[in-house]
């Protein structure tokens, strides 16, 4: 399998639970990378802490497994010091938007060229099922035993407002779309955000009585729809999938090259 060329297969089987969506994200992210024909030496994957962040250990790139929430800040240092490298930053929803929320909005604001993949399972899995910023009102979690009263973020709206120049959403059910979106996100010059709805059958699924991984993926099929579809107009509760933003804006590292020129430091 071509995907096998991109993994450190001595660490398989991986550490994720049976049916965990994160494996599907890994699977299709590698397919996206394969279609781009990038050299493995030119890819740096930076991750934080959590189930999702373990993804970096499994891929045969330069991998930087950092501290909780700070992956984008580490990645900023890598990218700015070596702008020719391709930066991919997979994060969980808690990692990206709770402890890492500040870094997330500021990386988006700078429009620094990297791809943030938010693997949204609506829970803290590594620590055993506490509510996350995307659990949403009404969800159950080990720290919300009487029902969660926290509202969730809309990752797409948040990313748009923060200035990301590529914003998209897909799910672990829609694997072909996911691969296509990740491919375009990596190719995009600027800060790209890809939200992937990714099931956690072990904690979110069990605590919210959502059934198996199969049931949860089926729900992604039933509760999502392509952007602007007729179905969305009839049922506004459907979650839209696809590319929401794709625009050209000055990219941070390119702009800094101009700063160097203005300062007279160009070679």
């Amino acid at each position: 399998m071509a995907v096998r060329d991109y993994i450190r297969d001595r660490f398989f089987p991986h550490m994720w639970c049976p049916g965990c969506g994160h494996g599907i994200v890994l699977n299709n992210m590698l397919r996206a990378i394969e279609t781009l024909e990038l050299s493995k030496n030119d890819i740096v994957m930076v991750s934080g802490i959590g189930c999702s962040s373990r993804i970096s250990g499994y891929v045969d790139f330069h991998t930087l497994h950092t501290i909780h929430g700070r992956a984008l800040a580490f990645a900023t240092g890598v990218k700015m010091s070596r702008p020719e490298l391709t930066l991919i930053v997979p994060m969980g929803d808690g990692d990206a938007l709770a402890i890492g929320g500040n870094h997330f909005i500021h990386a988006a604001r700078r429009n620094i060229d990297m791809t943030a993949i938010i693997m949204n399972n609506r829970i803290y899995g590594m620590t055993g099922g506490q509510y996350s910023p995307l659990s949403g009102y009404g969800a159950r979690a080990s720290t919300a035993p009487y029902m969660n009263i926290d509202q969730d973020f809309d990752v797409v709206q948040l990313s748009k407002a923060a200035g990301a120049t590529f914003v998209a959403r897909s799910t672990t059910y829609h694997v072909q779309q996911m691969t296509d979106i990740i491919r375009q996100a990596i190719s995009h010059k600027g800060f790209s955000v890809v939200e992937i709805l990714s099931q956690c059958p072990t904690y979110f699924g069990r605590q919210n009585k959502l059934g198996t991984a199969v049931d949860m993926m089926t729900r992604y099929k039933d509760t999502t729809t392509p952007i602007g579809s007729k179905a969305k107009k009839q049922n506004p509760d459907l979650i839209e999938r696809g590319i929401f933003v794709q625009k050209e804006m000055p990219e941070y590292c390119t702009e800094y090259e101009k700063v160097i020129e203005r300062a007279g430091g160009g070679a």
Partner: protein
Amino acid sequence: MAKPKLKEHRIERDWCKGCGVCVHFCPKKVLEMDESEKAVAVRPEDCIACKLCEYRCPDLAIEVITES
């Protein structure tokens, strides 16, 4: 473009955690779980090589090999 034709399902049994995603979503019901909760291709002749099992496998354990 000619439709790809199945050669074999290569399943990494040590990697398969038996979640059943491949079995459930196969449009032709080619796969089943065996007694040790591992995916096996029981009706390979029905396979249309859509590769959705390969793409959706959370364990990266399935490869659908086609004749080129």
